[in-house]
């Protein structure tokens, strides 16, 4: 079964360790990902803020290319990209006029037929069945699974069972031998698109998240969105200013954590690319008790 892959721009830049770790894990489990040839940017929040048609057309181009490539399912690890692609797909499928309008813009047909996988669906359906034989270390520590907005909402797109208290990432971390904590900010917003233009806001929102995770004894925060990761990691200086006492809790991608439990090297998983040292988590590999 071919699995298409849409990295999106962040995974080639600020979030590259996400794709590095994802590929490392996939490779370990002998699963191939087929990148969509000549994919383009999804338009992110800029497009849907400024121009609705553009916010559909940009993802539509990628979807059209995927169809040309004959891909029936596409993995979109980046939460933001997933949101845009899934939303665009929904519009294409539900409105014939929109569909013809867009394929008109693109000068190529587009159906929006391919199934778009979240990183959780990918892990559950393709990695979980084979994972156990590759998991060599218990990633023995308390972790806070942080889902953010775009992997939880809207629920008809993200298909989470408990959109207000998701468990999908927790399941992955349990596989990795960690102990996910029950906390209150799983699906709160980190400030996302305002990262550059209103860093002050991002700092405030992210601070609440880090604070709650730390106050409940989490030793790491695990994410599945490059924007969440960047805000919680790159913005830590600003975040710490917002907190009574700062925190150096590392922020990992779920695939990095899983990779560690599979004995993949920290370098290969891009754990050196973080601003807040990930050493703590690396060190609790195979640790006895939590």
């Amino acid at each position: 079964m071919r699995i298409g892959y849409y990295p999106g721009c962040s995974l080639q830049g600020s979030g590259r360790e996400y794709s590095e770790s994802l590929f490392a894990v996939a490779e370990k489990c002998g699963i191939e990902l087929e990148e969509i040839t000549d994919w383009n940017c999804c338009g992110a929040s800029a497009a849907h803020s400024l121009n609705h048609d553009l916010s559909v057309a940009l993802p539509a181009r990628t979807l059209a290319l995927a169809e040309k490539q004959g891909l029936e399912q596409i993995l979109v690890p980046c939460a933001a990209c997933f949101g845009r692609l899934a939303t665009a797909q929904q519009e294409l499928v539900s409105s014939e006029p929109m569909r013809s309008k867009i394929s008109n813009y693109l000068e190529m047909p587009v159906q929006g037929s391919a199934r778009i996988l979240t990183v959780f669906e990918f892990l559950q359906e393709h990695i979980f069945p084979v994972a156990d034989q590759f998991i060599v270390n218990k990633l023995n520590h308390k972790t806070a699974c942080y889902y953010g907005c775009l992997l939880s909402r809207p629920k008809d797109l993200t298909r989470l069972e408990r959109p207000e208290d998701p468990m999908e990432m927790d399941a992955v971390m349990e596989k990795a031998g960690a102990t996910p904590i029950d906390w209150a900010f799983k699906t709160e917003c980190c400030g996302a698109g305002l990262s550059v233009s209103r860093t002050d806001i991002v700092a405030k929102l992210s601070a609440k998240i880090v604070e709650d995770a730390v106050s409940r004894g989490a030793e790491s925060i695990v994410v599945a969105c490059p924007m969440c990761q960047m805000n919680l990691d790159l913005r830590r200086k600003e975040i710490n200013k917002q907190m009574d006492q700062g925190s150096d809790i590392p922020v990992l991608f779920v695939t990095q954590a899983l990779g560690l439990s599979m004995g993949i090297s920290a370098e290969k998983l891009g754990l050196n690319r973080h601003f807040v040292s990930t050493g703590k988590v690396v060190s609790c590999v195979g640790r006895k008790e939590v």
Partner: protein
Amino acid sequence: MARIGVFICHCGENISATVDVEKVARLASKLSGVAFSVDYKYMCSDPGQTLIVDAIRKHKLTGIVVGACSPRMHEGTFRKAAEKAGINPYFCEMANIREHCSWVHPKSDETTQKALDIVRTMVEKVKNDTALFPIKVPVTKTALVIGGGIAGIQAALDIANAGHQVILVEKTPSIGGHMSQLSETFPTLDCSQCILTPRMVEVAQHPNITLHTFAEVENVTGFIGNFDVNIRLKAKSVDFSKCTGCGSCWQKCPSKKIPDEFNAGMSFRTAIYTPFPQAVPNKPVIDRANCTWFTKDGKCGVCAKICPMGAIDYTIQDEIINVKVGAIVTATGFDIKHSDFFPEYGYGKHPDIIDGLQFERLASASGPTGGEIRRPSDGKVPETVVFLACAGSRDKAKGIEYCSKICCMYTAKHAMLYKHKNHHGKAYVFYMDIRSAGKSYDEFVRRAIEEDDVNYIRGRVSKIYEKNGKLMVVGVDTLLNAKPVTIEADLVVLATAVVANEDAESVAQKLHISYDKHKFFAEAHPKLKPVETNTAGITLAGACQSAKDIPETVAQASAAAAKTIILFSGSELTREPVVATVNRSAAPVYTTCTGCFLCQEVCPYQAIEREEIRDRAGNLLMNAARVNAGLCQGCGTCVAMCRNKSIDLQGFSNQQMLSEVMGLLNEPFE
């Protein structure tokens, strides 16, 4: 040879203003079979009716057509007149030349012509009328009341006090229903059990009431006045004839960790149990799903050893009893949503986010905390309590668009009770609107705000989460420029939506009554038949029909009782003879019915029965359909369905309808 009389009414000016009534009368007299025709100013007046009676007698009329108003208006009046004159009342037909003609058309020849057409049509119909006689159905003067809550109790007592037999069936081991769980009741704050328990005892002791607790209606057949009901008496495992209710069995029962339904899951009960101290009957039953004797076959048996009367009997089986009743009162009550219904409030994972019924138990003297309001998690007395109105109600996204009606009042009551017991505590109520229409209801809410200093915040709560032992209630005050407010609470009470019981649908299907999309039972008419169902003889009482408070429930229960008592007022009831009949004739034909029973499939009332036609020797000759006149409501769907016209509808027979069509058109319109 038919001799029809035609009587055209002016209705003052109402008809004559636009229709040339004289002309209609004149031309009508020329119609074949018409022996007499006349017009008059007010046919429905006494002189008008006398005119008709005399004409029938004088001209030996076999049938009459009254050209006047809608049959829905005066058909009865003129049928009586015909009867008075000595002809069968069903030989009287109304030609509706007012509502359908004179009032909707201008004065013109067309209008007059139309009036004539209508009259002619009915003349053709009356020629094919047959003598019909009201159907008499015997009545079994025993009522079945389903549900032993306050609705069922009230209905049962009213009917019983009118001197009729009542069979009261209750699903749980005791009557009392939700009302017995309540602490105090709005707007008077009198203790719920204090006013309820006397009624419960009265039911138990009433000579006319047979009480079956721990029992459920299995199935219902028959029809108004003559229902045939099977009731399942679930195995109590206790011989009530021996049991004295001493209670030593449940005191000794080792399985003590079963969530207590009566205390809304906030305490535990034993496997052999009486739901609560004032239960009626006050004798225990064994909950076999949780009793080790049944789960770990034959283990334990302590209760049997301990019982001084030897009343415990593990071998008792479910028993089905059959009863015949004339009327049924449905009072199966309601349920509420629980806190696990709310994702944004934590899917019920916080023990200190509770629902209204749980708070009632906390506030009740007979409750798990003896009436002290303590939070479930650690038994601490909460310093701050937040109440959320409209939890789930008026929430399209959650599939409950309707208002649950009682929450505004009981939330005010809850806040009040809390403040009365904890003067220094803080009580907040998040609300959208305050719906307190009812006798001294709004005054009650004002009291909560003004005298008990409850802080009402207009806005909905978006999220509740736990932090350092506090519940963070994230809301908004829309009366302060939509100010976001987060309240740190120790206890949160959700006024969760009132919903239908989960078995409501199956109950409705057993009774053949209809229900709305929220599974509340449907009344026959929203205004004029609020307690009847569209199945004759079955009435509704209480919250099974829609969310209701106690006064409303009691009122409706008494109304249902009144309807039942009216039904029982005569030894038999009379019904319009507009029913279907399957033709019958002498041997060797017997009937043209071929026994395909398509009619049976389409009949909404199960009125079509299967009759075996046998010869004298008793050999089966054929199966044919037979209509149960008691059940048939006269819709005639079976008639349209019948392949060879073997079934027909009295009053709207094939011959009558055909003659109408012909009469309408066989002469020129204009």
